[in-house]
Structure formats: C-alpha cells, structure tokens
C-alpha cells in the first residue's frame, strides 16, 4: 500500500505548483525555493529564502557560521528528515514538484539529488563496493555493467588513475582528499541530476582542495551543483551564482562576479570584505 501511495517525481500531475512559477528570466532552474523556511523546534533557522539553482551551473551558498546555509542545502534532498524537530514551510521545487510533498518518494528524490558531505564518509568497504553501493541499490545489475559504472565514476572524479590497481582494498586506507573524491565518485555513480556539496573541502589540505575545485569545474555543465562553503575565495573561483545567507535570511543572490565586485547590500559588502564572519 505504502509503495502505491508514493508518488514518483516523474508523475508531475499532482505536484505541479500551478499559478506562480518562479521567475524564469529565460533560464532553466532545476531547484527553486519560494518563501522557504526551516524551523528546528521554535528556532527559525532559514527565513523565507528564495534561491534557484540553474541547470548545469554551480551555485555557491556563503555566509557566517550558523546562518542556515547548510540547513538549506540539506533540505534539498530532505536529509534534514533525520532531525526529529525539523519542519519546513514554503515551497522547495525540484523539477517542477514540491520536495516536501507528503507523498513524495524520498528514495527516488535522493537518487536524483546526490550529496557530498563536509567530512569524507566512505563506507568501511572496498573502493569498488563503495562506488557500486548506489547502483546496486537500484536493483540487480550485471557485473560488466557495474564495472563500467565504477570506472566511469572514478574517472569523472579524477581518481581512477590513483586507485585502479587497488579497487578491492579498503576505502578507509585512502588519504582525506582521495576519500572525498571517492565520495564524489560514489555520488556520481547513481547518475544524479543535482549534486549538493556541503563544505566539501573544509576537512582537506590546500592541494586536495584545489583538486576538488578543478573537479567541480569539470563537472559543471553536466551536473547542477550547489556548494556550501566558508571560503569566499572558493565561492568566487568555482561558482556561477552566489547566495549570501545571514542569520537565516537570504541577503543577496546573484551572479558571482556581480556579488563579489558590487554587492547590493551593506551586510554582503561587510562579509566579503572581512568585517565579520
């Protein structure tokens, strides 16, 4: 019964958010938030945010600690469901349907919106099994096909050359940077449309950071990427659009060059020039 009641995202019918689609300005938005709020109990963590991720572009979300940027990102694939006291209001639309629709199939949503976490979190399994985990979930799959997916994913994550000889060794034996790229490869293996990255470089050294940034650059175009970062230089380097959150509110959202060179708001200016944060 449960399964039948679950609505596939592809059956857009009941989910269509009728009258007022977000302003498109001739652009193709994959994810769009409209007056989206998140509460932890009584705490209003994200206040009426209006942010959109354009297809094939990189959107950076910046802001000081505790401003709600990670909370917002984790809502996009409903990872915040793990927090009992968390509830939302407003609309968060993915591919034309509301992510928080009660009958939405979360598993399918998460398969289409992949996520890379702050700390590398490979499973304590072999490198191969880590990558194969997602595809195997989708159902039985031929070994040759799986091998292909593993190789493609690792190549896309620029890790193939480093690990091709030891696919069966434990993933926990990799360095921190390699582990994070493995996590990216693992997320790519399920062929998501959107890739959410929650401060993916904060636990890494500068060299690994620059490799991940290169990787993000390569992946953009093919994937829609949203990246939360503390590092303003990083946001400036990798993203096309930047959203600035402050104390739960979206202060400013726009093209990255514009936001960093001529911010519209005083708070944005103060933050990017290092007055606080």
């Amino acid at each position, binding site marked *: 019964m449960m399964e039948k009641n679950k609505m596939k995202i592809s059956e857009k019918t009941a989910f269509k958010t009728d009258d007022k689609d977000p302003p498109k300005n001739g652009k193709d938005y994959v994810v769009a938030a409209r007056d989206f709020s998140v509460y932890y109990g009584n705490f209003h963590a994200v206040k009426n945010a209006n942010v959109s991720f354009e297809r094939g572009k990189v959107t950076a979300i910046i802001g000081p600690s505790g401003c709600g940027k990670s909370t917002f990102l984790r809502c996009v694939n409903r990872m915040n469901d793990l927090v*009992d006291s968390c509830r939302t209001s407003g609309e968060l639309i993915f591919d034309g349907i509301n992510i928080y629709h009660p009958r939405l199939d979360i598993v399918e949503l998460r398969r289409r919106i992949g996520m890379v976490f702050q700390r590398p979190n490979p499973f304590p399994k072999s490198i191969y099994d880590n990558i194969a985990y997602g595809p195997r979930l989708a159902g039985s799959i031929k070994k040759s096909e799986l091998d292909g997916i593993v190789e493609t994913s690792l190549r896309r994550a620029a890790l193939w050359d480093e690990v091709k000889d030891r696919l069966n060794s434990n993933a926990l034996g990799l360095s921190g940077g390699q582990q994070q790229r493995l996590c990216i490869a693992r997320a790519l293996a399920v062929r998501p449309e959107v890739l959410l990255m929650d401060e993916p470089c904060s636990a890494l050294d500068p060299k690994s950071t620059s490799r991940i940034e290169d990787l993000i650059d390569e992946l953009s175009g093919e994937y829609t990427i949203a990246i939360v970062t503390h590092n303003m230089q990083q946001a400036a380097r990798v993203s096309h659009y930047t959203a600035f959150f402050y104390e739960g509110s979206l202060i400013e959202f726009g093209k990255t060059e514009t936001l960093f060179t001529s911010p519209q708001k005083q708070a944005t200016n103060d933050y990017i020039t290092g007055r606080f944060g």
Partner: protein
Amino acid sequence: MKTSTRKVLDKSFTLTSYASLALMCLVIVLFLAPIIVNGIGAVVFRATVEHDKFLYETLGRESSGYREELEKSNAARKPLYEMMAHFEKSDNYGHLVEKINAARAQCLSKLESEADIIFAALDIEDSRERLEKVRAIADAAWSPYINEISALADDSLHNGGTLSAAEILKKQSNSLPGAAKLALNSLYEKKKLSFQQKSMLRRNFTSFPMSALAQNLEKLEQANAAYNSFKKGVAELLGPSTAAEKEKLNLLRQKYGQPRENLARDVFEQSVLHISVAEKDAEGRDVVRKVESAEYFKGTPVEEMISYMQKNMPQMMQYHWTVYLGFFFDNPYDSNIFGGIWPMILGTFYLTVGAMLIAAPLGVIAAIYFSEYAKPGRLVSLLRMCVGTLAGVPSIVFGLFGLSFLINTLRVSESKSVLAGAITLALLILPTIIKASEEALKSVPNSFREAALGLGAGKWKSIYSVILPSALPGMLTGIIISMGRAAGETAPIIFTAATSTGAALAVWEVFTQATPALPWNIYNMCSEHEMADKVQHVQYGMVLTLIAIVLTLNMVAILIRAKIQKKLKN
C-alpha cells in the same frame, strides 16, 4: 594552588592508583594461583598402578609400561598377602582342639567322681558357706579347662591366629551347655535334689566356664575387629587382593585401590597406620576410637605387615608422573572418583551456545529497534526501563521464573532440560546483549547513515548494508562476553537444567534431558558430594576448566573485535 602542593597531590594520587592496582593484581594472583596449581593437578599428577589398572580394565586404554608396572606391584604385594593369609589361616590351632575337648571331658567327668563331695556341700545349712563351698569345688573342677582356653587365647593374641582361636572358642561356648547338662543329669539321677539345689548346681557348674569363655572370646573378637579394620584399610589402599574378590564388588571405587599418590598416602596414614577400635567408655557406652595400629598390634604378626608396608609402599603402588588428558574427555565413573568431566563440559557448552542462539538474534533486533527506529516517547522509555530492570534482577529469580513459567506453565519440557535452562540463561543475558548492541549501533558514525540515505538507500537497506556491518565488532564483543557470563551462571540452571550426575547428552536430547554443567557440579561436588574430600582434584579441575572457558571466550571477543576493527580501518 601552589605548584609544589599540586605536585605532591599529583604524586600521591599516582601512588594511590599504583598501590590499588598492585593490590588487585596480588588478590588475583592469590586467588588464581591455588586454582591453577590444583586444577592442573587434575590432569598432571603422580599416579599409582591402580590408575592405569582402571584405565586398562574399564576404558580399555593401556598406558605405556602398564604391564611391567603391574608385575612389579604384584611382586611387591605378594609377601604382604602371604603374611595376611598366614595370619588368617583357620587351622592354626587345629591340634589344640583335641586337647581342649579332652580337658573339658575330664572336668565333666569330675562331676561324677566327686558327686559325694558335691552332695555334701549342698547339704551345708548356712547358705553363704554352702555357696562358697560349691564355688570352690567348681573352680577346682574347671580350672584345667579354663587354663587351656586362656592359654589358647593368650597365645593367639601374641602370635596371630586370633581368627581361628575365636572359632574354637565359639564352638566351645556352643557345645558346652549341652555337655554340662548331660553331666548334671547323671548327677540328678543319683540323688533326689530340690529345685533350688539343681539351679545352684547348674549356675555354678555351667555358667562358670561359660563366663570364662565369653571373656576370652571378647578379647579375641576385639583383636579380630582391629585386624579387620586394618585389612579394610589395606583393601582401600591396594584394592581387592584377588580377582575373585573383585568380581563380587559392585562399586568401582571398591574394585580399585587409590589412583593418586596423595590419596594413597592419606589412606595409608588414616586407615592403615591408624585403625578404629570399638571400646566402652567410663559410662559403659560404645565408642569408636582411632588408635595407632603399630602400637595396637605391637608384638603380633600384624606389626610385621605394617612395617613391611611402610617399607614397600612405593613398590606396591608404583608411583609415577602421568598426564591424564582424559580428564576432559572421559565420563565420570562412580561419583567422580574415577574418570573425567566430559558431561559437565558438554552440558556447559550446550547451555551457553543455546542461550546465545536464543538471546543474540532477539537482542540485536531489540537493539536495532531502540537505536534506529524508536521515536522517543513514553512507550520507548518504559521499554528501556524494563530492559534496565531485567539487567538488575538477581539470577536466582530468573531460575525460579524458568521453573515456574517455562517448565510448569509453558511445559517446554517435562522437567528440567537443557532447553529450559538455555531459555532462562538467554533471558538473563538479553539485557547485556541489547545494551552492548545498542552502544555498538550508536557508535556507528551518523555520516554512514547519511551517506547511505543520500545514495538512495531505504532505512532497512542502510541498516542492513552499512550500519550492521560497522556495528558488528561491538555486537560480537557483547554477545561473546555474555556467553562467558552464561557459562558461569549457577542459580538459573539449578531449577531449570542441572543435575548432579548424568551422562553426556546427544544434541537431540537437549530438548528433553537435564544435564550436568560445570558451575552447578562445582557447587555440588564441594558441598553435597558424598566423597567431597576425596575428589578435590576434580573440584579444582572443574573450576580451572570453567575459568579457562570464560577467559577463552573473552579472549576470542577481544581478538574478533581487534581483527574486525583492523579490517574496517584497513
């Protein structure tokens, strides 16, 4: 606080902790050392030829050099048995029987020849004078006979042969009254006597030698009882002297002598060098007293036997070091005096593994529920409280529960069975397993859950494929340590599974049969066993085995955890 004060405090604290650690180690050593030493003594010990004899005859295992040993010990025992046979020989005094009978006939004939004197004495008016006179006549008449039997008794007491002397005296006391009656009858025919006169004659001429006989006989019987006590001690030490004698015995412990050197020495000291003698105390009550046999048998052939045994004990028993691994794999024979502890080990194994098979799945499932599915609420906190309470219930209460609910109400088995015991033990260790598994699940980083969910795994799939494997080492550790606890628990199995004796069970019998098990049998053998002080080596051996099982389980737990952790961390 000043730096110097802080340093002093630091040092004194360190010192105290070292001291308490040292104390703990000392206690453990003091506690374990005797158990280990004595427990090893159950397997490695100085055996006697009787041990090998038991192995060969009952279990069909011939130890190396057994035949040679047997020959040597038989050769050493032969002189002793010969001495004993000579001592017990029944016709030592056969040649004296004629003499005694002749003396008796002579004494009785005096009755006739001195009839006139007797009648004269009976006619004396004064009753006291009359009695004295009659007695004097009887004394004179019987003295040769009494002298003969006293001489016989004294001779046998000094030179051995009390057994045959006692036989002769018994025969005499049986036949004497008849013979005396015949002689008296011929007296009555000669003269008409009053009833009083008749009874006076009968008393003095019959009971007079009878009491002398009885006195001598008592002396001899006492000596015989002492000798029998000595002989029993020898049989206990060496086993029955002949094969025919052995066949007649029912108990295995009577068929063989002492199998261990220390036991042999004890028996020699207590039952051969000392004997029990029945005596009357000042108030006339019978008491049994232990006396030194060398002192008691001084001057008799038994003294020679004792000194021979003292000299030749090692040859007779053939002491030698042996390793009896059968202690772990043999059934016990005759109240654990012989054989090993296999049924107890197997019973403990069944109970422990059974408890684990029942408790582990339940515990893990409950832990998964608590850790992954339960939403905080009144019901869950109630359930948690129940688990906590269960952990605090005394184990004897579990035992009673097993008896009253599982056996009497649910009737999982007719009476005690391994199944009922295993279920009871499972309930006992369930809280521990739940707690340990829950901790293990909680220690799995949340990032694993997020990663699995983020890749589109459902809840159960993420638990099954990522969280459980990561929590496995912790769970296994908890389960195996609980097994150790189940192996050592006594109270729950008293009511539900344990018997003090019984054979090793086959696997299909565990559902209906009770079993011996180490913890219960340790208690039973130390306190309620009929031969508790003779089977000390078995007691220690079982304690050591149990400790070894529990420690091994804990070691395995540590190793598994280390291995899996190493694998997880590459």
